[in-house]
Every structure is written in C-alpha cells, then in structure tokens.
C-alpha cells in the first residue's frame, strides 16, 4: 500500500441535514500512520464527518475516499469489508450491555473469524491487558466507570487489528486521570500497532499533546490546518477564539435573536 497516499481523502464535500448545510465544499486529506485531530466548536458537524467517513450516512455531493475505496460507489458488502479494517470508539463506549467485558471484546472475533476458543481468549486478554483492564474481564458494562467503558471499547476496536482507528469525543465527561490514560493509549496504540488515528474532540490542550496534525472546522469548512504549534500562532480570528477559548468572536456567544430591549419591552405574549 502506498504510504504517501492519504488514508482518508475528502474533496469538495457537501452535506445537509434537514435543508441546513453542515458541510459546503469541505476538503481534507488525512495522512497515514499519524494521529490526526479534527476540532471545532460544537455543532460544526465533527461527528457527522465521522459518520460520513465510516459510510453511516452518504454525502450529498463531492467525494470521500477511504483506504482507496470510493464511498459513493461502495455497496453494503464492500462497506462491511472496509469496516473490518476500521475501529471506532463511540462517545460513551457503546458496549453491548448484555455481554460481559470479555465477550464484548471477543464479539468481533466470534462474528468474523472461526478461531479456536483458546486463541480468542489469548487475543482478548492481550487487548484487555493493553488497556489495563485484564482484571475486569468478567464484569458487566453496567459495573464499569465511564473511563473504563471507553477503555474496554478501545480494546474491542483494536481486537481485529484495524488500519484506521476513529475516536469520537473520547474525553467527554472523563476525570483527569482517565483522560490521561486515554491520551497515552491513543499515542501508544497508534505507534506500536502502526495505525492511523482520527480523533474528534474539542479539548484543545489535551489533544494538542498527542496529535501530529490538527484540522479546525467551522462553518462547514476547514478554517485551519497544521501542527498543534502552528495552530497556536495561526493568523485567524476564529482560530484564536477557539484555541484561546474566548467566549465571543467570529463564533457568537448569542444565538441569533431579535433586539434585546425591543423584545423585553414588547407587550406581546411569551414565545
């Protein structure tokens, strides 16, 4: 496989939800073997972008190529073949609640391979050891904390040895220790397993420590691209607002509304 080609190549992507455009002319090339962060204010469509990359929804226009496959022409069978080469970590882990931790991690192996039980056990325990939860193999998902659930989901995402690992907001609601653990795991798994990682997040500080490239999305377009250091001194107001965490700026603090005083003093009924 050509290492120079991007693993995800998005050209002139447009996508709308309910008539409201989410992306309009988005271009993005995600390099192989790197940790790439996709950041942006809430509601810019970061999660939607992941759904487009993984083929859960289809673009209205433009092209998305993932590992050389054109997502526009891919049928269900081809899509499932492609997804076997991807792993995805959902915001809340999305563990199957009726299975134990062990069975959750074993699930993709049991569904897609005919490996003997002994080998499945070894593989699952190895992956659980990698995320530090070998001791929790017998627990049910309801017995895990948020951080532990995400680590189990991570073990499940890597159990099929994917080429591409996608993280959807992996730090939401985590305490600093769990966050640190997940951060270290993202970097370590990427480097030791030779993966490509895409991390969608808005935790600027945290993600800057592990990512090689950052894309900043706003208004349906990429407004900045570069290393975390480059982004810090990027000559754009929106980037400064986002990276500096400023309440008001190009992304307004107020949701569009009629004039404040006029509305307060108006005699009409409540809206």
């Amino acid at each position, binding site marked *: 496989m050509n290492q120079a080609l991007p693993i995800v190549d998005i050209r002139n992507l447009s996508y709308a939800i309910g008539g409201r455009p989410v992306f309009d002319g988005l271009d993005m090339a995600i390099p192989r073997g790197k940790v790439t962060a996709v950041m942006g204010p809430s509601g810019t469509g970061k999660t939607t972008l992941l759904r487009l990359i*993984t083929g*859960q929804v289809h673009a209205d226009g433009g092209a998305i190529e993932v590992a050389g496959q054109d997502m526009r022409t891919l049928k269900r069978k081809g899509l*499932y*073949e492609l*997804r*076997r080469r*991807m*792993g*995805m970590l*959902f*915001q*809340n882990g*999305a*563990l*199957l*609640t009726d299975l134990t931790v062990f069975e959750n991690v074993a*699930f*993709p192996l049991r*569904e*897609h391979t005919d490996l003997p039980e002994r080998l499945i056990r070894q593989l699952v325990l190895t992956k659980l050891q990698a995320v530090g939860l070998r001791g929790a193999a017998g627990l049910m998902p309801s017995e895990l904390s948020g951080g532990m659930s995400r680590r189990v*989901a991570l073990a*499940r995402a890597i159990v*099929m040895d994917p080429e591409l690992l996608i993280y959807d907001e992996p730090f939401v609601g985590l305490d600093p220790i769990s966050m640190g653990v997940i951060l270290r795991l993202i970097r370590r798994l990427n480097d030791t397993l030779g993966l490509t990682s895409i991390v969608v997040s808005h935790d600027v500080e945290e993600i800057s420590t592990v990512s090689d490239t950052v894309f900043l999305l706003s208004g349906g377009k990429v407004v900045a691209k570069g290393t975390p250091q480059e982004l810090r001194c990027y000559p754009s107001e929106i980037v400064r607002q986002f990276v500096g965490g400023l309440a008001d700026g190009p992304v307004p603090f107020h949701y569009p509304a009629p004039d404040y005083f006029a509305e307060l003093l108006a005699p009409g009924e409540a809206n």
Partner: protein
Amino acid sequence: MNTLNELWQSLIDSLVRLGAVVRFLLRMLVLIPSSLLRFDLIVAQIWNAGALSLVIIMLSGLFVGMVLGLQGFQLLQRFGSEEALGVAAAIGLVKELGPVVTALLFAGRAGTALASELGLMRATDQLSAMEMMAVDPIKHVVVPRFLGGVIAMPLLAAIFSAIGIYGAQLIGVQLMGVDSGSFWSQMRAGVSLSDINEGIVKSCMYGVACSLIAVYQGYYATPTAEGVGRATTRTVVTSAVAVLFLDYLLTAAFL
C-alpha cells in the same frame, strides 16, 4: 378544502409508513435463513418473549376461563343445556379469546420490552457500534427477536387456551355442578380440527404482527428518552389495533 387536504396528506403518510414497515419485513425475511444458523440467539429470545411471559399468560388464561365458565353457565342454564358449557368455552377460547387476548398481553409484556430494548440500544449507539464492527444489527439483533416472538406466540396462545379450559371446568364442573362426563365428551365431539387450525393460524399471524411492530418501532425509535417512550407506547397501541383488525379479517376468512 383544507381538512380534505390534511386528510389526504395523512392517508399518504400512513401509506408511506406501511411501505416502510413492509420493506423492513422483507429485509428481515431475506436475512432469516442466515439467522437460523445462529439458533442460540433465537432460543434466547424465545425465552425472553415466551418463558418470561408465562406467568401473566397463565394467570390471565385462568381468569378468562373462569369468567367464561360463569357467564356461559348462566346463559346455557336458561336453555337447560349446561352440558354444552365445555364445548362453548373451548371453542370461544381456541378460536378467539386464546389468540386475541394472548396477543394483547404479548404486546403489553414482550412487545414493549422488545421495543424499549432496541430503542435503548439505538440511543446508546450499540446498534451503530455493531454496524461499525461490520455486523448487521438487523441480522444479529432484530431477526432473532422477531423470530423469538413469532415462535413464542402460538405456544403461549395454546397454553392460554388450555389453562382457560381448565378454569371453565373449575367453575362449571366443580362449582356449579355440571356433569363432568358431558362437559368433556361434548367438548371432544364439538371441537373440530378446523377450529384448532383457525386458532393456530390466528396466533401465528398475531405473532408476526406484534413482533414486527415491536422490532420496527424499537429499531427506528428516536434515540432520546422521549423517543424510546413514544416507541413503546406506539408498540402497544398499534399492536392492539392491528390484532383486532386482523381478527376480524381472519374470522371472516375462516367462515
């Protein structure tokens, strides 16, 4: 004119929804052969939908049978033909009350459980996670639940009818003093195989309808607490209407 337009629009919407349900059913039917290879998943769902509904079905069957015994006895006594109580209760239970009441109880007990379980799986991204692991959730989650319901329903209806007949016997024979011999012999003579067939066909059809409605509502539930609640309510309401409507059609067809 406006009302006419709205009426027309709602008719179109209903047809579109019905079309979506039929498409969903067809997609499941295509996947059934490969799902049968994973029979363990289906057995687990027969347990969930069937065995766990047994208590409510048996209790209701007993009470319905007892009421039939009482009412039937009062009525038949007027004509001096109390001995016909056995055949009256059996036919009423096997052809009508067994399948219909079982289906209504099934929709309330197993149908709501199915819809809320699938809805919550949707809301907690479990179905998307399966999709991302290249496992078709319809094949792995929905079809086994559908088949579990379809297989459990006729069995539950048979148990309901059997316990109901016992309940009618309890009141008619033990309490009101109908002759035990004529109660059972008239039942054997009066209930034909076609009556039993009608009951079986009905309960199978209701099994398909109730399970289909439950898995469809759950699978396409809006992934919020409110959405899952609404899907559960819709399951019961739609199932009840569908069962009673189908009951009329099937009864007319069997005449």
